[in-house]
């Protein structure tokens, strides 16, 4: 089939395929879904885990938009202790590679989480730096290059687990944030988290203020990967609006080393198979040996040593 061509390395992590299930859109991967071929999934990213259990936001939590959706789930999760005891062992049985997404409202919460996770065998920690009101700041960590640098640096000192910084697109200059994360020692970047958006439910006369995802945000995700690729050396996981097989190719061409599937699975149950097929076809058509060869192909930076 050629699927072996799709093996990739993200730093020292070897993945059988470049498909990573994005945080929050695949739960903990434990639902019984017969139409998914789990062998085709390179890694799962868990729903974001916090130190304390979080209840999440009240209804309404979702609303449809043109080619996408808004969600305001909030970080509903049972807390790290429950997660480690009752959920993580089950994930291990089902997935080859596990990325655990974590978030904290304070630096201290992050450090506590890291210390706990240090004792677990997992493949990477994804830092969800898009928690709205970090400490007393009226912004997310990833909305400030100083905060990003500071938090990543602190965490890096506490752990040897590979770290991924998940960035928000809601910034004036995403390059600055990516550079700050890289300088602080992050191992990988994943972009994008959802885009700030709002919907009006005219029937119920309610607003849903949350994060936009789905096909509609693909051009925003591609632009972020494209910009970040120019300024960092570490691998980029491209996420946002991959709803068809060929969408994944586009992310590689502008600079991604792997891709994340989020709400694409909600609208297209065949998305994983389609991505695998499209990537293999593209490699064959362009006579490329592996995905690394096409990463950044349409980015002016390609060619310069990485």
């Amino acid at each position, binding site marked *: 089939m050629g699927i072996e061509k799709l093996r990739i390395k993200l730093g020292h992590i070897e993945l059988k395929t470049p498909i990573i299930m994005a945080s929050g859109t695949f739960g903990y991967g434990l639902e019984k879904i017969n139409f998914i071929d789990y062998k085709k999934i390179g890694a799962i990213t868990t729903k974001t885990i916090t130190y304390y259990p979080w209840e999440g936001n009240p*209804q309404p939590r*979702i609303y449809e938009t043109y080619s996408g959706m808004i969600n305001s*789930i909030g970080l509903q999760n049972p807390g790290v202790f429950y997660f480690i005891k009752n959920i993580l062992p089950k994930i291990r049985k089902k997935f080859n590679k596990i990325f655990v997404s974590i978030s904290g409202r304070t630096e201290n919460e992050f450090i506590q989480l890291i210390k706990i996770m240090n004792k677990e065998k997992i493949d990477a920690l994804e830092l969800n730096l898009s928690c709205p009101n970090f400490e007393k700041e009226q912004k997310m960590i990833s909305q400030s290059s100083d905060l990003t640098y500071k938090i990543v640096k602190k965490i890096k000192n506490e752990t040897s687990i590979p770290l991924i910084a998940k960035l928000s697109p809601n910034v004036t200059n995403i390059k600055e944030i990516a550079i700050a994360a890289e300088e602080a020692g992050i191992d990988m970047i994943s972009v994008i988290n959802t885009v700030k958006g709002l919907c009006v439910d005219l029937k119920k006369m309610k607003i849903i203020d949350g994060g936009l995802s789905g096909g509609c945000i693909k051009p925003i995700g591609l632009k972020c990967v494209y910009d970040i690729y120019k300024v960092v050396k570490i691998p980029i996981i491209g996420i946002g609006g991959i709803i068809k097989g060929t969408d994944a190719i586009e992310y590689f061409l502008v600079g991604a080393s792997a891709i994340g599937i989020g709400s694409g699975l*909600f609208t297209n*149950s065949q998305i994983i198979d389609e991505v695998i097929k499209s990537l293999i076809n593209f490699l064959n058509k362009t006579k490329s040996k592996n995905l690394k060869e096409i990463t950044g192909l349409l980015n002016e930076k390609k060619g310069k040593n990485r």
Partner: protein
Amino acid sequence: MNSEICKILKNKNLSDDFYLLKIENNFKEVFLPGNFIHIKIEGVFLRRPFSVAIYTKKFIGIIYKKIGLGTEILSKKRKGESLNILGPCGNSFPIFENKKVALISGGTGIAPLIFLSSELKKRKNKIYFFYGARNKKLIFSEILPSGIDYIFSTDDGSFGQKGNIFDIFKTYKDDYEIIYAAGPEQLLKKVSLYSSKKPVYISLENYMACGMGLCYGCVVKIKEEGDGKYKRVCKDGPIFEGEKIIWE
């Protein structure tokens, strides 16, 4: 749960904005009353959930109301076209034997209760089916199982008794052992708050994204220790015990 491409066998207007859709049953899995299917309709991003109303080895039938863009596109699909469908989704109604039961439906709530009533009948339950609709045209007698006692009501009195089905229900002697209800949230809330002495099972209809228990978008607050807990309507539901719901 699986994802199948199913051919449309029939897609007919029942009356007003109500439709009956029959698709090939290509699923290996068995469906139970209360389960829903999650339909991909090209032209809208998210799938649309519909309770299974009729279920045989050969086909699956749903009854849907045209209320927005998705159902409008669906209503234009013709026999022979295909749909991508996830199913079976969600949990199902608990079913007992030899009981005296009441079924209360309003509007599209009729759909899951038709499937339920035919299963209840097989288990020798004595069924009182309270069926409320806007008017006579929305009483779909041709698809109702036989051998069941129906009590009809319409808003305009054009068929059965005039008035809201819950009000009609309350005028009957209440010696049912179990109550099942489906339909508008207001109806479900009233039925749930009505009696705490006997079990009430209701089918919830929250907005859904994944329909597979992955995203936590469809949750409802359920009574538990503390403030209660959000449960997923698509996975832990759509069938819940009425008294457990924390209504907003």
